[in-house]
């Protein structure tokens, strides 16, 4: 229970075969945790039901143990208090960015960090130990990278774009240990806010939210045909190549596409 880091893992149901497998983002988080220097005392935690197959799939990454905590209460209850109690003594908690089942909202790292009173950093692709804390590299849009020094304890959400290989070793799969525990009923949290929802089959064609405008037939035809009044933009055909190059550079500068 006093391992230096824990990784939260989830179950993914394959959309085509409906088979339960491991989540790739969580597997990347596990691989990243296993690569951190120090004792390989990485503890995988799952709250909910997880079959042995999926648990062994996660152990095949090289992790020694996985704890499956079964909440006794209804699945609609929030799992954050149970996780908070289970991980209170762990300085570093890693998660993926979002799960595949259960809405996949990606809000668990933030909820858990708020419940535990820890800072949370998302989109992490690299972690290096720095004394008691860590230096994490965040992957931002357009290939930018930001480095942050995070003090212990912390929650890190690992990005799905982490450049790590995922291994699958049969020996580790067999040697790993699955420990199953049942959580006490009062450990569950409040009703999850999604309980007022209604489940329906997936809709492929979605209805766009738009204004209902009463138009003449001609106007509706023009809109459907896509008369593209703004199509084409500006055309420059006269002038020397230098003038045209100046026009191009002026356009790039006006829209801040270049930075000089």
């Amino acid at each position, binding site marked *: 229970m006093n391992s230096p880091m824990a990784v939260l893992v989830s179950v993914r149901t394959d959309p085509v075969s409906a088979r339960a497998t491991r989540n790739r983002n969580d597997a990347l988080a596990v691989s990243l945790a296993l690569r951190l220097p120090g004792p390989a005392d990485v503890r995988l935690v799952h709250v909910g039901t997880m079959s042995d197959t999926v648990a062994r799939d996660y152990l095949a990454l090289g992790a020694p143990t996985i704890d499956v905590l079964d909440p006794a209460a209804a699945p609609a209850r929030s799992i954050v208090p149970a996780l908070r109690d289970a991980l209170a003594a762990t300085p570093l908690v890693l998660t993926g960015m979002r799960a595949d089942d259960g809405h996949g*909202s990606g809000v668990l790292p933030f909820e858990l960090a708020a419940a535990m009173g820890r800072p949370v950093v998302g989109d992490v692709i690299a972690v290096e130990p720095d004394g008691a804390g860590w230096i994490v590299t965040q992957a931002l849009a357009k290939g930018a990278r930001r480095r942050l020094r995070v003090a212990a304890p912390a929650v890190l959400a690992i990005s799905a774009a982490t450049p790590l290989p995922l291994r699958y070793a049969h020996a580790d799969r067999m040697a790993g240990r699955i420990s199953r525990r049942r959580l006490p009923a009062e450990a569950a949290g409040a009703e999850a806010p999604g309980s007022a929802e209604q489940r329906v089959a997936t809709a492929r064609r979605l209805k766009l939210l738009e204004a209902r405008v009463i138009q003449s037939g001609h106007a509706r035809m023009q809109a459907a045909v896509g*008369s593209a009044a703004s199509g084409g933009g500006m055309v420059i055909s006269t002038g020397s190549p230098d003038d045209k190059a100046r026009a191009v550079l002026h356009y790039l500068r006006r829209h801040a596409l270049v930075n000089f």
Partner: protein
Amino acid sequence: MNRERSPVRRVDPRRPAIITPAGLRRIVLGSTEGDRLGAASAVHAVARPVRSAGPFTRCIAVAVHADRGTLDDHAREAVAAAALLAGPDCAVRVAVLGACHDDAAALGIDHLLAWPDFDRQAYQPERCVRWLQQLHDRWHPTAWLLPDRAADGELGRRFAVAGALGLACGVVELDARQLRVRASAREDALRPHAAVMLLARAVASTRLPFVGLGGQQTESPTDDAAGSSSLASPIEDLGLEPGDPQTLALEEADFIVAAGNGVTDVALFNALASAVGAATGASRVAVDDGRFPRAKQIGATGRTVSASGYLALGISGAVQHLQGIKDCRHVIAVNLDAAAPIARRADLTVVEDSTRLMRALLDLVQREKQGAAA
């Protein structure tokens, strides 16, 4: 390959035409003046009415990050969704992190509040959340809408968790009464509106039949010393380095220069790309001819890019290539043929030989850089 001028004169089927003051369409053979497309320019923009002049008892709020002084398409869709959901007594208030030079009324905004000196490079999520909480206490909106992508999605999640507000992420369909989220691979969930809703792409149409009031204000959130010092200790910002365009994946690049059939001088093209700080791509013809590797192909079979700027040199703009640049924001096309299909897609078309324009642009860029350095 350089196509010589064939002896048969190529007639442009869409000759440029102007609309005379009498309303008749007039084509002058041989002239380049006028609009090349059909009756499009005859449809003038009708003045759109104001959605609601007030009095407002409620409001619906939107929070977005500005992208280089303007709101991009995803942000505009979130604003349009707010405008469409708002009733006659509900105001549309938008909080923008960054400067915003857009026309607020045209986007359907009643009150726009911008934070002009917001520094995108600094790591300050708690400060943004505190600002949103101040606005929440000031405005009491019925709902907050944010686009569900990188910085805005994280801000929405943090804000909802910090304020213990109901949250719906990745909303794919929105109605006056309910919303739809993807619950799992096989199921969707329909639920009533949440206090904070993060919208996916293409939830609302940005073509609004009305305008907003368009009030604009700026504000710099005051940073109380107690709040900032207590949160300064756990996380320290060590700096941000922007991505190197040459080593980046094409899908992530921000500015792309692409070569097509009309580009023969590959060394000049690469020199221009590195001078301008852009990633390089190519169309299928250039890749098939062996001038570029297959990994650089952009199009339906190649990569789909979503850059902010795309400079297409010597690309005719076949449909398959246009599929690859569907999400690009600003497209500049350089082509000898003004009737090429890419002219319809491009925001700026330059009718010029690609090699000559590349040389002129490279000289200009190098002169500007030297002038700036000196």
